[in-house]
C-alpha cells in the first residue's frame, strides 16, 4: 500500500535515526498518522554526528506532539554483539508482550531490522512495517563502500547439517561487487540471485545486465526474478526457490536489495527455520545517498510464527 492514511494506530514506533531527509520527514509523517504514545529510537555511533541534527529536530517534534521519546540507544556497526544486546534488551524492556508495533524500516540497517523482528516475534507482537522511498530520482550515485566481513545473525543461524554443501540465496541490489564478496566469503556450491524485475531507476542496465555478465562464467548460479517492493510476492518467490534447496544444502540467505525485500527474507526465514540469515555490513556510507521523500510502502506482519 502506498497511502499513509491506511496506516493503523499503534502505541509504539521503532526507528533507527539517519542523516537522510526521509528519516526526519518520514518519522514526522508517521507520528502524525499513527499517533503513537512512544517512539523508540536507535542510532549508530559511527554516524552520530551525521544524524545528530535530525535526532534533535525529531526530539523537539515529539515533545510538541506529546510523544514520549526515551533517550535514543546507541548501536555500532563495529560491535555487533553490543548492538544485538542493546536491541534485544531495550526492545524487551520497552514493549509489552503482544503489543502492536509500527516498525519504520526506511533507514534501518538489515541487521537491526532482523534482530528487532526476531525479538518482536518472540514477544508475538503484531508488526506494521513502513518504508518511505526517497523522492523521484532522489538516489545518489552510491550507498555504501568498504564492505565488512559478512556475518550470520545471532539466533537466526538456522539448523546446519553436517556434510552438506552451502547454497547462498541473495536478494541483490545494484552493487554486484558486494554480492561477489558474499560468494567469495561463503564459497557456496550453489547460488541463487534474486534480481529485481522492471526498469525503474534504469534497472535493466544497472542491475540485470551487470549480474548476468558478472556471473556468466560461474557454475551453478541461477537467477530468480522478484519485484523488490512487493513483500508477499518476494517472500513467495524466495520460499518457492529456497525450499527445495534445503533437501541437500545448508542455506544462507542475504539481502542487499530493496529494504522491503530484506523484510521479506525475514519472513522466508520464519517459513523455513533451517535457513541462516547473513548480513553483509559496510563501513562507509554516502552522506548524500538520497534526497526528499516519496511514496510510503507499508503492510502488516502477523508474527504468528515464532522463530
Amino acid at each position, binding site marked *: 500500500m502506498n497511502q499513509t492514511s491506511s496506516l493503523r494506530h499503534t502505541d509504539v514506533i521503532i526507528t533507527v535515526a539517519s542523516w537522510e531527509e526521509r528519516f526526519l520527514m518520514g518519522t514526522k509523517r508517521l507520528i502524525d498518522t499513527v499517533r503513537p504514545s512512544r517512539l523508540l529510537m536507535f542510532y549508530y555511533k559511527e554516524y552520530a554526528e551525521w544524524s545528530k541534527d535530525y535526532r534533535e529536530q525529531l526530539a523537539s517534534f515529539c515533545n510538541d506532539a506529546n510523544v514520549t521519546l526515551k533517550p535514543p540507544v546507541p548501536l555500532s556497526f563495529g560491535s555487533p554483539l553490543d548492538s544485538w544486546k542493546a536491541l534485544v534488551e531495550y526492545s524487551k524492556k520497552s514493549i509489552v508482550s503482544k503489543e502492536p508495533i509500527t516498525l519504520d524500516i526506511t533507514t534501518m540497517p538489515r541487521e537491526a531490522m532482523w534482530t528487532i523482528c526476531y525479538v518482536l516475534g518472540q514477544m508475538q507482537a503484531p508488526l506494521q512495517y513502513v518504508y518511505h522511498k526517497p523522492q523521484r530520482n532522489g538516489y545518489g550515485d552510491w550507498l555504501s563502500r568498504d*564492505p565488512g566481513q559478512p556475518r550470520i545473525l545471532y539466533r537466526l*543461524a538456522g539448523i546446519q547439517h553436517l556434510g552438506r554443501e552451502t547454497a547462498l540465496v541473495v536478494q541483490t541490489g545494484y552493487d554486484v561487487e558486494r554480492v561477489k564478496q558474499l560468494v567469495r566469503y561463503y564459497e557456496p556450491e550453489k547460488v541463487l540471485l534474486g534480481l529485481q524485475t522492471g526498469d525503474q531507476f534504469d534497472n535493466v542496465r544497472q542491475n540485470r545486465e551487470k549480474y548476468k555478465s558478472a556471473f556468466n562464467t560461474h557454475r551453478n548460479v541461477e537467477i530468480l526474478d522478484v519485484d523488490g517492493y512487493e513483500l508477499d510476492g518476494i517472500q513467495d518467490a524466495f520460499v518457492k526457490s529456497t525450499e527445495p534447496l534445503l533437501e541437500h544444502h*545448508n542455506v544462507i540467505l542475504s539481502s542487499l536489495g530493496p529494504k522491503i525485500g530484506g523484510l521479506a527474507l525475514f519472513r522466508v526465514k520464519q517459513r523455513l527455520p533451517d535457513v*541462516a540469515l547473513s548480513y553483509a555490513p559496510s563501513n562507509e556510507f554516502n552522506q548524500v545517498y538520497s534526497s526528499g521523500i516519496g511514496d510510503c510502502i507499508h503492510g502488516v506482519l502477523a508474527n504468528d510464527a515464532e522463530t
Partner: protein
Amino acid sequence: MTAKRNPFEYEQATKLTPAEVRNYYIEDFNYARFVSSRRNVFLVGERGTGKTMTFLYYSMPTQVAKATESQKTPDLSLISVYVPCNNPLTHRREYELLDPLNASLVSEHFMVISIMREALAAVYSVPNIINDDEETALRTEIEYALSLTLPKGIGLQRAFDLALDKSSVNVQDLLNRDEDDIRISLFSFNSGIRALLACLRQVSQLRDSHFSFMIDDAQLYNLYQIRALNSWIAYRDNALFSFKVARTRADDTPLHTSSGGSILEGHDFTQIDMEQPYQKGTSAFWKLAKRIVQSRLDAINANATPSDFFPENPTFTEALRVAASKAKAEARAKYPNGTSKQIADYIYKYTRAIYFRERSARANLPPYSGFTLLAHLSTGVIRNLLNPCYYMYDRHLSNLQDKNHALVSHIPPSTQTEVILELSKEKWEWVQNDMVNRIEGCSGELAKSVYQLLDNLAILFRKRLLSKISEPRAVEFTISGLDDTKHATLLEVLQIARKAQLVYTYRSSAKDQGKRETYYMPNRMLWPERGLDPEGQHARVSLTADNLQKAALNNIEITFTGDKTDEPDLFTPAH
C-alpha cells in the same frame, strides 16, 4: 583435440571432482613431503595459492582413486582426512553470547563432530577396509566409547553421520532458542576424536595407520576453536595423529592454546609459505607452472607443450634477438677482457631493457605473449596463471568460425596480447573503482592510497626501465627506514594491498649478511598496461618508507635519480 571445454577453468578446488583433482594436481610441489608427513604443518597463503587443491589431492578419496587407477593397493599407513571449515556451522556466532566455559565447550563440540564425521568418511572411502564382523565390533566400540546410540539396521558410516548430525542439531536448537546454559553431552577432543581413533585402530587394516587431519580455511574458526586446535597440536606424541592447517596469510596466525600456553614454529609445527616468489626461469615455480599448464593441455589432448600452445609473438622474438646482439656488443665494449660469465650476465640484464628502451615513444604497447611471460605475470600464484589462459582460450574459441568442431592447437600471439592488455587494464580499473566495494576493511581513502602507491611505483619502474642504470628491470622493492609508528598508514595501505592480492611479500636475505627482510612484489599483471616488463629481473629496489608513504598518501612521485638514490641491488634468492 577438442575445444568444447575450457581446460583452464579455475573453479574453487572444492568444486572439482576427484578425477579432476587427480589430473590437475602436480604432485611434486616442494612442500608435498610435509603434507604427507606425520608432522604438524601450517600452510599459509592467500586465496589461489593451492592450499585446498593440495589437501584434496592428499585426501583419502583421491589417493584411493589414484591407487585404483594404477592397480595398486591404497597406502593405509597415512589416512589423510580433509576437513573443510567454510560452512555455516563454523560461521555461527552464538558463542559470543555465552559465558566463556559454555562458549568453549560448544565451539569445540561443533569442531570435533565435523572432524569425526570426515574421519570415518575418509576410512570408508577405502573399498573393503572393514569386513562385516569388524564393522559389528566397531559399531559396538563406538557406541560405548563415544556414548552414542547409533540407529540400527543401517550401515555404520550412515548411522554415525546421523548420530553426529543429531547431536549437532540438538545444540543448534538450544542456541536458536536462547538457551545458553547447555546441559547436554558435548564432545571434546578426548571424548570424541581420540576415542574414535582408538576404536578405528582396532580395525586390522588400520592398526598402524596415522591420521592426518587437514583443516582447510582454519582462519574461519573462532578464537575458542583456534585455541583448542592449537592445544591438540601441542600434543607431543605424533604417532597416532597430526594436523595440517591451511589459513590465509592476511590473518596473523594466533598461536595460543586453551590452557594459556603457546605453540612454537619449528618445535610444535612447521610453517610453509604457499606464495612462492617468482625468481627466474629455472625456479621451482616456473617448473611447476609448466607442469600445471601441461596437465591442462593433456586433459584436452592438445598434444602441445605450454610454449607451443602459448607461442611468443615472432616480431617480439626477433626484436629481442636484435636487442641481445646490441647488449652483447655493449658488453664486449665495456669488458674488453671480460669473462664469459660477465658477458652473459650483461646480456641477461640488459637485453630486454634495450628492447623496451629503444621502442618508439609512439609505438603501441609491446606485444605481450608467450608462456614464459604468462608464468611471470602470475606473480607466483597458480590462480593468476590460469586466469589469463582461461580468457585467451575462450577468446580464441569465440573467434573461430566453427566452434563445435574447432581444434585449438595454440593461442595466436595477437589474442594473447589482447587478453593480457585487457586484464591489465581491468586490474587498474578494479583498484580505482571496485576494490573499495570488494575488500573488507578497505575504505575509500585506503583504496585511493593503494592506487596512488601502485601508480607511483609504476612511474618509478618505467623511468628505471628506460634509463641506463644497473638494474633497469627491477619490479620488486624493499623498504628502508621503516618506523611502525611514523609509517603506520603506509603499513595499513600495504596490508590492504596484500589482502587484495595487488602486492605479495616474502622474506629473503638482505644485503647485510644474516639479516632477513621483507620483499614486496606488486602483482605483475599491473605492468603491461603501463608498458613495463613483467618479467623483471633478479633485483629489488630499496625505497624509503617516507617516499612510499608520500606516494601513497599525497600522490607524490617517488624520487628517482638514477642508481644513486634508490639503491638497486642484486638480491640473493632465499628459496
